[in-house]
């Protein structure tokens, strides 16, 4: 663990983030795509509820892994920071500024004995005409790092391997949506967690710089691509 973070930063990572459903985010040539493996523990849950992808202001999207209630607190704080920045500077907050402020906030909870660290990793991304796509991750220790492709949660290792195979800087968001879906489906553990819902969101040129849930037609296309890829790999196993 980082010496720069508090003594307890390792603790929230274990029960919180590492046991949560996988979350991946990829930064393409014209935007950022988020994919979340939302594990469904009960058929009674309403579909589409308890979203793991959230918007902070309208130009920044985030996906969270870990304790959902902690995530809510962090996202609320991020929204406050964005509002405050907009109030003072009359421009939307740049992603880097937001991550700095949020990183400080998360870090605060690692240096006092009376507080426990946030059990959440949050991936934040934005796109604008001038600066292009940006993706950053804030982990429970409060460190904010920029990425081209990032994965957290259960299938983190496998997902990272898959992401490394992609040539992200050359792919557009439309193509990446399918790839992200495919990766989530492939790292999903069918045995341990029966049901899951794939949440896909994107922000980029195609959305005019606004963070949105991927529209149904593109979503269905991505799921189909992912399922087909999964079946193909299953067939390969059978042949061997």
């Amino acid at each position, binding site marked *: 663990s980082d010496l720069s973070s508090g003594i307890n930063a390792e603790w929230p990572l274990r029960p919180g983030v590492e046991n949560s459903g996988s979350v991946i985010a990829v930064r393409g040539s014209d935007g950022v795509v988020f994919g979340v493996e939302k594990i469904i523990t009960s058929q009674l849950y309403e579909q589409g509820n308890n*979203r793991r992808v*959230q*918007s*902070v*202001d*309208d130009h920044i999207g985030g996906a969270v892994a870990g304790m959902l209630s902690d995530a809510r607190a962090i996202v609320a704080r991020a*929204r406050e920071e964005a*509002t405050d920045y*907009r*109030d003072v500077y*009359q421009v939307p907050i740049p992603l880097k500024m937001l991550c700095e402020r949020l990183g400080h906030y998360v870090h605060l909870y690692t240096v006092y004995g009376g507080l426990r660290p946030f059990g959440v990793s949050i991936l934040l991304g934005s796109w604008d005409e001038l600066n292009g796509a940006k993706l950053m991750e804030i982990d429970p220790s409060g460190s904010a790092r920029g990425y081209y492709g990032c994965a957290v949660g259960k299938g983190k290792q496998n997902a990272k391997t898959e992401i490394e195979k992609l040539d992200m800087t050359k792919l557009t968001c439309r193509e990446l949506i399918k790839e992200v879906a495919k990766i989530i489906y492939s790292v999903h553990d069918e045995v341990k967690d029966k049901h899951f819902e794939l949440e896909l969101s994107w922000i980029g040129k195609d959305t005019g710089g606004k963070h949105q*849930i991927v529209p149904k037609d593109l979503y269905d296309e991505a799921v189909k691509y992912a399922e087909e890829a999964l079946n193909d790999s299953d067939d390969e196993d059978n042949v061997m």
Partner: protein
Amino acid sequence: KQWYQRRVAITAGTLGSYGSLARFRDIQRLMKVNDSTIIGGFGDYADFQFLMKLLRQQTIDDEVVGDGVYRDAPAIHNWLRCVLYNRRTKFNPLWNTIVVAGKNYGGEPYLGYVDKIGVAFEEKTVATGFGSYIALPMMRKAMDENPDMGVEEAKAVLKRCLRVLFYRDCRSLNRFQIGVVSAGETSISEPMSADTDWSIGANPSGYE
């Protein structure tokens, strides 16, 4: 400085005066709050900018919830009424008259007026400033004759009113924008001008 609206169409000049000086000739007095509402501001422009900032933040707050629900025109109208009335009661008014043009959750057209003293009402035709003296009677007549007019006819009525206003109000500018809120689209046009005919000006009598 004046502007006027109709059921689903709203228009405002692009002039920001500094007393009698036509100081800023290309300002936006119409603001698209969200897909259901356009507001137009009359009066102090700084106060209007303040209200626009608050409304912009409200729309962002609605968006991040992510359920596709936005405040509709009556809600925004009522919110503005609360803010404006409160400020007047504290003897610190926002010196504006705002017109709220839009639709409610059911998709029906809505047109409301709020004042710097907190007066608020809903009507089919609304106008501020000079418009309430010159344009309002014209709009009311048009509505009486053709209560179910469509967007294009409404725009034509507004342009006619704006032309007369430019003729009659010496502190006006022949440049305005028209905003439309309808079932399909909510948008504000580029600035445009009314065609004017000053030929009768060559032979005035009694004003020499």
